[in-house]
C-alpha cells in the first residue's frame, strides 16, 4: 500500500514512522530508509504487512507541514488562541 509517513524519531538503529492519516506507529530498521532522512521528514512509502518496501523523501510534503505547523505554533506563542 502506497501512503504518506513521517519520521517521528530514531531509536538506535530503528526509526519510528507515523503512517497515513491515522498516524499508525511503525518501527522499521533505519537502513530501510534513505540515508539522508531526518527526524521530521515526510516520506512516500510502500508498506505491506508492517514492512516498508520502499521509502522516498517527500520534500514538498515536509516543507508544507513545516510552514503550516510553524504558523500554528506562532499563533500559540502570540496567545491568539486565547483572545
Amino acid at each position: 500500500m502506497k501512503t504518506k509517513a513521517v519520521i517521528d524519531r530514531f531509536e538506535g538503529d530503528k526509526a519510528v514512522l507515523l503512517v497515513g492519516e491515522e498516524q499508525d506507529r511503525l518501527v522499521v530498521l533505519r537502513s530501510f530508509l534513505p540515508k539522508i532522512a531526518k527526524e521530521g521528514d515526510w516520506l512516500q512509502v510502500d508498506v505491506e504487512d508492517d514492512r516498508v518496501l520502499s521509502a522516498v523523501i517527500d520534500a514538498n510534503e515536509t516543507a508544507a507541514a513545516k510552514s503550516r505547523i510553524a504558523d500554528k505554533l506562532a499563533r500559540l506563542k502570540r496567545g491568539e488562541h486565547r483572545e
Partner: protein
Amino acid sequence: MQIIKRFLSWCIGTFQKQGFVGKAVLVFVSLLVLCCLCSVPIVILSPKATPTPIRVEIPITTKEVVNATILPQVTLILGAQTTSTPIPTNFYTETIEPTSNFTSVSGNVQVSFIDVGQGDAILIRSPEGLYGLIDGGEADSGVIQYLKSQGVQNLDLVVATHPHSDHIGGLVAVFQTFPTARVVTNGEMHTTAVYENYLDAIAVSKAEYIEVVRGNVIKLGSLTFTVLNPGRIVEGDLNRNSVVLRMTYGNTTFLFMGDANNDTEAEMIAADLPLKADILKVGHHGSSTSTSAAFLAAVDPTAAVYSAGKGNSYGHPSPDTLARLGNAGVNVLGTDIHGTIVFLVDGTGYSIQTARQVLMLTPTVTPTTNSTAISATQTATSEVISISVVSLTSPISPGSMAQLTIHTAPGAACSITVYLKSGASQAAGLGPQTADASGQAIWMWKVGSNTTRGIWKIVVQATLGGKTATLSIPFEVK
C-alpha cells in the same frame, strides 16, 4: 548421498584389504577423529561454556561478604540476560500478588509515574491539590483513565518535555478532556501530524502556551520546578533539548529528565547546575545513551525510575544503564516491571507504592548504618516489603550445618523452602519464623550427608499487612 555411499564402500574396501595391524591402526584413527568431532559440541554444551555465572556480593550487617554464585536461571527478571556487561548489584525477583490499591494514599505531594507502556507520563499533585502532568505517553495509553481514577478534574500545568509521539501523543486527549491552565514546552517544533494535532488541541483548550529555558521557575501551587534544560536549543536533536525539571519538597528532590541524553548530562555538569536529587527519572526510558556514570555521581540519587513498555522494540531499559545504576547503589523502579509507581512525599521523606509488588533487592543497604541516605532508602522501601540476605553459608559441604539470615520488615511472617535435587528439604529447623524487631529472621539446619552436590535454590517468603515478598537465593552444596 551418492558421495557418502561411495565414501563408505571405499572405507569398507580399504579396511578389508588391511592385515590385523592395519585394521587396528584404522580403528584407532577413526576413533580419534570421532572423539575430536564430538568434543566440539561437548565444549559448547558444557555448563562452563554457558554465560558466565553472575557473582553478586551481599555485604550486610556482618563483616563477612557472602559471595553467592547465581546461575542465569534463577528468578532474575532484569540483568540475567546480560552477557558482556556487569550485572547490577540491585535487581528484581519475581512478581508477587499483583495489586492496584491506591485508595489509602496519603502524603502532601504525590508523584505518579504512570504505566503508559512505551512512553512517559508523570502526574504530580501539589500540597494544595493542584495537578501537573509531565508528558502524556502515546495516544490511548491509559493516561486519561489514570487521571480520572485519581479524581483529577483539571490540570494547572502540563509540561511537554519534547515533541516525540511517545511523550505528546496522549496529550491531545488530555487537552480535550481536562481544562488546562498552562502548557510549558521548550519551543521546539516537529512536523508530524501527531504534533500538529497536539498544537490544535492546545489552541482549542485555550491553555496559556509558555516556552521555558534554563533558569526559569515554574510554580504548581507551593511546588517549585526549576528548569535545568535546555540551556540553548541544539538543532536536530529533539531528545537532547528535553525540558529537564528539578523539584524539591521539604528534604526530597526529584529530577525529571524527559528524554535527555549523555550530551545533555555532560552539558548540565559543565554548567555546574544543582543536580543532586533523591529520585531520578532517568532520561530516555533507560536507554544506553543516557544516565552516564559521571551524571549518576553528580545526581547521587537513592532511587531511580525509568518508564518503558514491557517487551518494547528498542531494548529499553538498556542492561548497561541498569548496571550503571546498580553499581552506583541506586534502587531502580520501572513501569514495565512495577506498573504505575507512586511516590508519596511528606516533606521529611518519601514512600513508594507500586501497582505490582515487586521485590527490590538492595544488597548495598546496611540496616545498622544510620546515614541519611540509608534512612531515606528505608523510608523508600517501607511500603514495598522487601527481603535481603544478611548471610548464608554457601557453598557448604554435605553433612554440615547451614545458616541463613535475612532482613525484612520487623514482625513479618517468614517461611523458607530449600529445594535440593530430590525436592523440598524436610530438615528440622526450616519452620516458619517471625522477623524480630530489627527485621531479622534466622534459620539453621543440617544439610544431609547424602545430599547431591550442585547449585540448588532457597526460596524465602515474607508477609506483613497483606503484602508478600519472595526471594529466591542460590545455594551451593559442594
